[in-house]
């Protein structure tokens, strides 16, 4: 029974979001309307007894089977935000620049020159595990539709990806130099309350989620075979295949559609092995007056269906009728993912924008999650009206589809629009020109009902507002996880040790290494706006043609830190994204987010969620970057184990003068290398160095220790640094800027060298802290900038105005890369050898024989 319960939990949650479906296996002869709806059937649709009673109350009768399906998707976690709503209200969403906050298909901000930027981030996690290529591809497709539904042309995409380890962490783990090597290093996470070590995964009940060709029993067997703290070779190979498929999927969809994939980030942690994260952020531009909203108007106006035909893909729920068979036929019943068609989407984009220009379109919404159901009832609900549709007119891919299937289908590349009565021909003509189906399937009504007809019968009749807005809202129980006893913290090497070799290993760690292997597979230049390509700067920068301006975008998040402290971890995500945007020379102006968590029914997960929201709220308020939209993805767990809580923040920034956009590369020999520190004092060195350092990338990679606490956050310091960077960049005083983050000062310096035209750096640092903490510590509010000798004085003066400390670190040079600490060289190596370790690491791991060989 455990197993059945688990299957209900998972697919139900993300089914409508993701298009995961298990095929209806009701008797073929039975029509939908004949399937008797009972409380048990409702429960199998994931509706609680209270929710079912609420449906009966809204309708004043029992729902029929089609209506039950409609309610179950609309009231699913993904569509209704029933567990997250009460928390999300705490986020700041207003600001003079915000034209549209949460609640529409995407958030919109004013970017001057009569233009608006629409942007939003969304997850496609489960499908990307089940079928990495199509899962990721349709993830890109979904968020692009959200953008052009607003009337905005997509101009950039970023991806935040999380995978399980693609190399054995334990192999890189070394005992600190100058101390005895520990008997056995434990690299498994020691998370409070969530300590499911790899070894005890095996005895948990069957898979709640099955992916990538592995049956539940195979997975369980695999988990059992794991050595404590280790990651077995098969899991590593599978993680590589998932990464490969996801990257190909993103490339396939984005490249063909013609939107540049300009940035993002990738991290690797064991918790994502059975639940990778694929979060896609898209940005689009529109003239302010051309913005479109999904709000039905005008009783009698025609409702037009456009785009791809409706098929049986993405239907969920009914599967649960057959849960008894699930184990026996798990291979056939394994959740499927829709197949995306970027070509169709490209046509849909051009046709929709052209149709909007006719002035005959009143409202438009894409059919993403919950397809025809959500698009019709949300448009009706927002307009305070009703919508009547006739399913016999819906273009169908296959004959014999039931009303239930059509209403719940999540076939991709479809839109629903409301046109002005009498002008429908203008709209239909545009779609005909692009060779797309466009059919009038219904009309706007005044009775406030979503009425669905099929084969001359009314198969559903539901009050739109109640369906869309009066769903359940839960204040789920919260409970902090139990503290971990006897947490092992990192041991520092003796002062003055040669740390060059550790540095080299760190540079080649997947989390730090160059992601070139990934982004070279993306067309990051199409539309010829990309001023800062992937890897060139801390944020992606795209110019806005026809203006002097450019936009900077960065997406960031650190699940490890959020596991250790969700409040601080979430704040650090906001701070880093904002800092990155500032390092590109931009003023942060707004944010979107994608909140990836485990099951909200677990009080510990809900506590993490609530704390993360609090962290984001405080950070965004202090830094004055309102949240304009986003996405919550719950139920990210497999085998009963939750992922690390992973809020990902996407921050948008404005560069008034595009020619002042900054990269991270050093530009000229002899330039000064300065550390800008918002903390304005030597206070950057944490009081409890070991505790903070134990959560660093260095600690994990070199010592195999992941514990302690995230770096302390000083939002005021972040704010000062961001303001100083934006001012210095716009004044043209900086040559380059790069924030100190993963891997600390040493990695930051090295990356500015690697990005340059063969330059190196010589740095001299003094500090009282442990050597490793100084070199590799990840405390925020700091950035490395390079400055021409004649601008140094100006930089010091301006930084002082913002109360930001300036520490001279060294000079841009040629030849040996060298860091002296307290008068002793602690890192010294030739740039080409370091660059090779860093730039070729992913390629060496991913071009092995378990993938097709890359040349």
């Amino acid at each position, binding site marked *: 029974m455990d197993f059945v319960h688990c299957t209900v939990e998972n697919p139900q949650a993300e089914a409508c979001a993701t298009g995961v479906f298990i095929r209806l296996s009701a008797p073929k002869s039975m029509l939908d309307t004949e399937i008797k709806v009972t409380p048990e059937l409702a429960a199998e649709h994931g509706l609680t007894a209270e929710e079912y009673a609420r449906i009966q109350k809204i309708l004043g009768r029992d729902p029929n089977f089609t209506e039950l399906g409609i309610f179950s998707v609309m009231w699913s976690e993904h569509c209704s935000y029933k567990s997250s709503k009460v928390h999300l209200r705490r986020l700041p969403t207003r600001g003079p620049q915000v034209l549209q906050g949460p609640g529409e298909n995407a958030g919109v901000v004013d970017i001057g020159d009569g233009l608006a930027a629409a942007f939003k981030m969304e997850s496609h996690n489960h499908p990307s595990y089940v079928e990495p290529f199509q899962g990721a591809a349709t993830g890109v497709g979904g968020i692009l539709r959200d953008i052009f539904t607003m009337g905005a042309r997509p101009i950039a995409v970023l991806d935040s990806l999380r995978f399980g380890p693609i190399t054995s962490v334990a192999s890189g783990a070394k005992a600190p130099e100058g101390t005895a090597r520990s008997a056995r290093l434990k690299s498994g996470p020691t998370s409070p309350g969530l300590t499911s070590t790899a070894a005890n995964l095996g005895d948990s009940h069957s898979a709640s989620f099955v992916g990538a060709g592995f049956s539940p029993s195979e997975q369980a067997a695999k988990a059992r075979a794991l050595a404590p703290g280790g990651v077995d070779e098969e899991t590593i190979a599978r993680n590589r295949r998932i990464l490969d498929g996801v990257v*190909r999927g993103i*490339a*396939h969809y984005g*490249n*063909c*559609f*013609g939107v540049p994939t300009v940035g993002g980030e990738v991290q690797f942690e064991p918790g994502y092995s059975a639940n990778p994260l694929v979060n896609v952020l898209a940005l689009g531009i529109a003239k302010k007056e051309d913005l479109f909203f999904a709000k039905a108007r005008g009783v009698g106006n025609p409702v037009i269906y456009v785009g791809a035909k409706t098929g049986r893909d993405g239907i969920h729920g009914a599967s649960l009728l057959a849960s008894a068979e699930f184990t026996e036929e798990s291979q056939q019943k394994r959740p499927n993912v829709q197949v995306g*068609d*970027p*070509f*169709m989407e*490209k*046509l849909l984009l051009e046709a929709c924008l052209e149709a909007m220009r006719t002035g005959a379109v009143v409202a438009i919404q894409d059919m993403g999650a919950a397809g025809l159901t959500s698009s019709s009832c949300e448009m009706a609900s927002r307009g305070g009206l009703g919508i009547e549709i006739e399913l016999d007119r819906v273009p169908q891919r296959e004959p014999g589809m039931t009303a239930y299937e059509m209403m719940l289908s999540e076939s991709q590349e479809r839109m629903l629009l409301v046109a002005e009565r009498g002008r429908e021909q203008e709209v239909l003509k545009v779609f005909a020109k*692009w*060779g797309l189906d466009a059919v009038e399937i219904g009309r706007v009504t005044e009775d406030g009902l979503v009425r669905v007809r099929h084969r001359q019968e009314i198969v559903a009749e539901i009050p739109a507002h109640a369906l869309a807005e009066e769903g359940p809202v839960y204040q789920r129980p919260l409970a902090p996880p139990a503290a971990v006893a006897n947490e092992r913290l990192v041991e520092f090497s003796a002062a003055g040790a040669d740390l060059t070799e550790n540095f080299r290993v760190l540079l080649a760690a997947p989390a730090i290494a160059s992601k070139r292997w990934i*982004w*070279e*597979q*993306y*067309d*990051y*230049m*199409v*539309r*010829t706006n*990309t*001023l800062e*390509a992937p890897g060139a700067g801390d944020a992606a920068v795209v*110019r806005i*043609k026809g203006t002097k301006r450019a936009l900077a975008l960065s997406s960031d998040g650190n699940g490890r830190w959020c596991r250790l402290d969700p409040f601080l971890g979430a704040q650090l995500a906001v701070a880093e994204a904002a800092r990155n945007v500032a390092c590109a020379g931009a003023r942060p102006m707004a944010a979107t987010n994608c909140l990836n968590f485990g099951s909200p029914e677990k009080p510990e997960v809900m506590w993490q969620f609530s704390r993360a929201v609090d962290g984001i709220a405080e950070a965004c308020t202090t830094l004055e970057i309102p949240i304009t939209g986003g996405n919550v993805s719950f139920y990210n767990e497999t085998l009963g184990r939750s992922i690390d809580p992973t809020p990902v923040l996407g921050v948008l920034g404005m560069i008034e003068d*595009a*020619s002042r956009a900054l990269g991270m590369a050093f530009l000229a020999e002899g330039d000064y290398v300065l550390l800008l520190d918002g903390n304005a004092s030597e206070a950057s060195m944490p009081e409890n160095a070991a505790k903070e350092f134990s959560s660093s990338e260095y600690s994990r990679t070199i010592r195999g220790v992941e514990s302690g606490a995230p770096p302390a956050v000083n939002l005021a310091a972040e704010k000062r640094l961001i303001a100083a960077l934006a001012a210095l960049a716009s004044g043209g005083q900086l040559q380059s800027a790069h924030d100190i983050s993963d891997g600390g000062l040493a990695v930051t310096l090295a990356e500015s060298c690697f990005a340059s035209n063969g330059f190196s750096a010589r740095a001299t640092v003094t500090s009282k802290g442990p050597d490793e903490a100084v070199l590799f510590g990840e405390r925020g509010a700091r950035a490395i900038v390079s400055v021409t000798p004649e601008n140094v004085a100006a930089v010091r003066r301006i930084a002082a105005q913002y109360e930001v400390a300036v520490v001279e670190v060294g000079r841009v040079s040629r030849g040996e890369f060298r860091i002296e600490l307290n008068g002793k060289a602690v890192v010294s190596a030739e740039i080409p050898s370091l660059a090779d370790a860093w730039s070729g690491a992913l390629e060496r791991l991913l071009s092995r024989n378990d993938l*097709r*060989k*890359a*040349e």
Partner: protein
Amino acid sequence: MKFGVVVFPGSNCDHDAWYALGQVLRQPVEFLWHQSEEVKGFDAILLPGGFSYGDYLRTGAIARFSPVMRAVEKFARGGGLVLGICNGFQILCEAGLLPGVLQRNAGLRFVCKQVHVRVETTDTAFTATARPGQVLQMPIAHGDGNYFCDQATLADLERNHQIVFRYTAADGREEAAANPNGSLANIAGVCNRERNVVGLMPHPERAVETALGSDDGLVVLRSLIESLTRRAVVSA
């Protein structure tokens, strides 16, 4: 003088070509819809990059049957100047206007990056203003750019100086490491025997402003403009 940029369903570099010619180089340029049955009034036709008709069958294989391609073929046979970039190059090969084929990249992955190509002949309208052997930096972005032809065709191409661009290192040295996709003999672009049709995988239209990494693509586009100007003078 008027340029036509063909728009197939799925073209996605059409706007970039239009922008480079119209906004950066200030030339008259218009889009040509794939269903156009004639290309009258245009002095040069550009087939842009993208995924025409989704390219699901084979790159360029469907586009070559579109109505506009019949007109382009006629235009080319009459000596009109035609430039195919990326997907445009693939379409020209499929249409038989250029020799050879473009296969899947040897690495079996899409590749997007800056590359260097050497101008192998200045005897085309698209390279007329280049220095012989000049090295140009331009980006590539394709999954199917692996040029191939049989040995007899290759010998023909060499003999007739139809190889227009070769992938090289930044200093112009021809080497395997500089070949991003496994193309035969490092071929990045070729012309027909009459030299009025050129196709290449790199994107000159993406390399017209230093802010975006390179403006070497201007050599190609300016050569085209200059050749057209000269033609106009000759015919006048």
